[in-house]
């Protein structure tokens, strides 16, 4: 009976290997939260190691963030476009590392998409800002105040004309309810602003509700609709001339943006200057305002020359980002600052002005970026991270995101766990009752099947998802089928009058073709799902594939070995 010995030996080896593979998972899953916390404090590395060698839980089970980015390479030249996605991935990976997520997963999908999985991390806004921003840091000079004043006058007259035709039209249509008409107009612009604000990762709550102010059109607003909404504030001291930076009431921004977007206004703005908004809403004189700058378009200096970035609390209470200028950049930076002493230098990140401090003296080796007054510590840290990781080679857009809270994940786990246990128990009892002792043998095989499946998942470093759990449960149902086919066959053979031993052997032998065929068809389905499915569906395909494959082993090697423990049978309980 050397065949029998081999079967036992191989199974024993598999059990040992399986136990080794599954051990860490078992340890981690049986640990309570307080034990995990204790371990985290004692030895965070050990906990991380344990988590890495255990079966990973998908985002749907442990909470976390899943983001799919599209890299917009169409704006790039062909030579830059090739490899842009890879470079973007590299940059994003470095940025994510700065965030300190335990096991981020960043991979390319298709030609131009990047998938980012941050298991266990749930600060969605921050993660979005970090992966989504281009992070092109530029230093720009401001336009002179004289030119700016001239430009504002011209814009005023154009806007005045255009507003006249606009209000003229709307009064003609809705004379009795003019307030309604203008309120709904504001509503629609607010709508657009929201989309815009959201694109920039800003929350604009409250913007949409208070239209009250807009109705008070004073004479000066009528005359200079544009400039009257701009409060010039960046004057510096007496020795310094005023500079084109204005505070705009928070709720006026949509309107100003709309005006700046008019084709006739765009024509007025010289090609070498540009309007730019502040990164965040600022608080000035207890008012919430956006700052609007008029910049010279020419890029004076760029972020790639910055290194040794660190953040600290500024003297005024805000946050400051210190940097050193790399050796390639020192000459240029010194020249720039030396030539523009007492002028403001705008620090522009992705088109928005972070701040525009005055240059006090010629700067050679190092400098400081003062963050806007409302910047939080996270903003400063984000700035540091993106400056260190560098800019993305092309703009990206978030085309899919999935945020799962930890409590929802925990809820799914307990549901998955209970349904697995319930299904397994009912089937074990059902098979045991129906096929008696043979049924118990099948049950043993089934338990081995589930154990091997978990061990393989652990060994492969597979990710368990909610559909994956469904796959395990379904495996339990389908893999029993092999035993049912065999046992029914044995019963038939017994009825034809064969001996018990001959019936067992014939049952196993004759059922094999059928079992093999049925397994292959399930494997084909699982394969197709694996190739074309995404995230959770893949988890389902993986568990189904291995569950079904392993069931062939447990049915034909393990249960057969148990039947073969005795050479001859007088009776059989089946």
């Amino acid at each position: 009976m050397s065949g029998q010995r081999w079967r036992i030996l191989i199974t024993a080896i598999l059990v040992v290997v399986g136990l080794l593979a599954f051990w860490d998972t078992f340890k981690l899953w049986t640990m309570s939260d307080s034990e995990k916390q204790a371990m985290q404090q004692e030895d965070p590395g050990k906990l991380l190691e344990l988590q890495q060698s255990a079966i990973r839980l998908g985002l749907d089970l442990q909470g976390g963030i899943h983001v799919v980015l599209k890299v917009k390479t169409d704006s790039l030249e062909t030579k830059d476009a090739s490899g842009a996605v890879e470079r973007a991935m590299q940059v994003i990976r470095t940025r994510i590392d700065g965030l300190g997520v335990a096991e981020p997963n960043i991979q390319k999908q298709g030609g131009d998409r990047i998938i980012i999985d941050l298991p266990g991390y749930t600060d969605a806004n921050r993660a979005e800002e970090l992966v989504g921003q281009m992070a092109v840091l530029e230093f720009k000079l401001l336009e002179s105040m004289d030119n700016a004043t001239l430009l504002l006058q011209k814009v005023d007259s154009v806007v005045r004309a255009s507003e006249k035709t606009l209000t003229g039209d709307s009064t003609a249509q809705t004379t009795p309810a003019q307030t309604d008409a203008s309120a709904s107009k504001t509503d629609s612009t607010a709508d657009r602003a929201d989309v815009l604000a959201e694109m920039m990762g800003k929350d604009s709550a409250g913007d949409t509700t208070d239209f009250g102010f807009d109705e008070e059109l004073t004479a000066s607003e009528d005359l200079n609709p544009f400039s009257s909404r701009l409060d010039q504030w960046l004057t510096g001291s007496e020795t310094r001339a005023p500079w084109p930076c204005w505070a705009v009431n928070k709720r006026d921004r949509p309107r100003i943006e709309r005006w700046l977007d008019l084709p006739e206004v765009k024509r007025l703005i010289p090609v070498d200057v540009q309007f730019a908004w502040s990164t965040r809403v600022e608080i000035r004189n207890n008012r919430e305002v956006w700052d609007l700058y008029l910049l010279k378009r020419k890029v004076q200096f760029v972020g790639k020359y910055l290194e040794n970035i660190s953040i600290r609390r500024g003297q005024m209470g805000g946050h400051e980002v210190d940097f050193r200028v790399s050796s390639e950049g020192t000459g240029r930076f010194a020249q720039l600052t030396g030539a523009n002493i007492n002028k403001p230098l705008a620090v522009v990140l992705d088109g928005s002005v972070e701040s525009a401090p005055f240059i006090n003296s010629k700067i050679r080796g190092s400098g400081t970026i003062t963050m806007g007054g409302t910047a939080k510590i996270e903003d400063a840290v984000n700035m540091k991270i993106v400056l260190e990781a560098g800019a993305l080679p092309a703009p990206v857009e978030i085309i899919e995101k999935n945020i799962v809270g930890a409590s929802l994940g925990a809820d799914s786990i307990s549901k998955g766990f209970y349904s697995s246990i319930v299904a397994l128990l009912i089937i074990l009892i059902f098979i045991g009752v129906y096929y008696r002792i043979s049924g118990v043998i099948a049950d043993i095989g089934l338990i081995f099947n589930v154990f091997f499946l978990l061990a393989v998942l652990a060994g492969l470093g597979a990710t368990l998802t909610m559909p994956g759990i469904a796959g395990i449960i379904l495996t339990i149902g389908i893999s029993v089928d092999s035993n049912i086919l065999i046992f029914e066959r044995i019963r038939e053979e017994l009825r034809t009058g064969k001996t018990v031993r001959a019936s067992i052997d014939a049952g196993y032998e004759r059922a094999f073709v059928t079992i093999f065929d049925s397994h292959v068809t399930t494997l084909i389905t699982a394969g197709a799902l694996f190739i074309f499915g995404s995230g959770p569906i893949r988890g389902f395909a993986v568990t189904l594939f291995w569950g079904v494959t392993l069931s062939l082993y447990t049915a034909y090697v393990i249960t057969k070995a148990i039947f073969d423990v005795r050479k001859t049978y007088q009776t059989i309980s089946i």
Partner: protein
Amino acid sequence: MFRLLPDTNINFIGVRRYAFGLSLLLVALGIFAFVMIVAGSAELGIDFAGGVMLQGHFSKATSIDELRSTLTSQFPEVNVTELTDFQYPNAFIIKTKNPGSDAEGRAHVVRIKELLTQHFAGNEFVVDSEHVIGPAVGESLRKDAVWAVLISLAGILVYIWIRFDFRFGVAATVATFHDVLAVLGIMFLMGREFNLLIITALLTLAGYSLTDTVVVFDRIRENLKKFRSRGEFVFSVNHSINEVLSRTIITSMTVMIVVVTLFFFGGEVLRDFSLALILGVIIGTYSSVFVASPIVVEWEARRPRRFK
């Protein structure tokens, strides 16, 4: 020996005309559902249509009607469902579909949260999960799903044709399509949403129903050799179905046990998935007995080939 069924000798083949009638109805329904899905008239999940899904719970008791009317003022097409088996009470799922662009989808989330904060002051809506799928991603997921279905059905077909002869291959394929279409049709009638998980369930049940058919066909193949002398094609087919009937029923029962467990204990995520599988087990069992084998019989009756 504990047996659910005694030796049966039911004339399954005899009632094939009735079965064909019922099956034609189911298939027609399925084709109708398929056309509706392609035409965009069926409920597609946000993974296929693109859209926004917010799951969260209120801190105080909240009526679903109030929630719905709050949201419909700005999102006429909003879809709100209450979650009854979540760990927190007052939990809801809010969905809007078909955003015009990726940015618009993200803007929806902000607007919905804003509306809820404004309208339910003092009753905070805690977001447990947020899912935004842009239109482009929805489209590529739709494409992937179609490919997954085509590839797996083609793979199964090729395998069956290799293992059996042409007629059995066609019959098994027809039965499998029948099952998938029938479940699709019934899910459509029930107004269920079609998403990636439903497609997964359909493919799984295709595999399952095929297994059922293969088991019967294997037995027919075996019996045809045995009964060759009698020259009774219909008899051996019917006999084979009866022989494997207890296996068919017991296997269906065990699979039924697990999918019913999933339906009741698997939570909202897996509810429709398990519903599709429950339907699939019932129809798959039916089709392996009443559809697949009778097709072979009918074919043989019209163009006899084996026992001339």
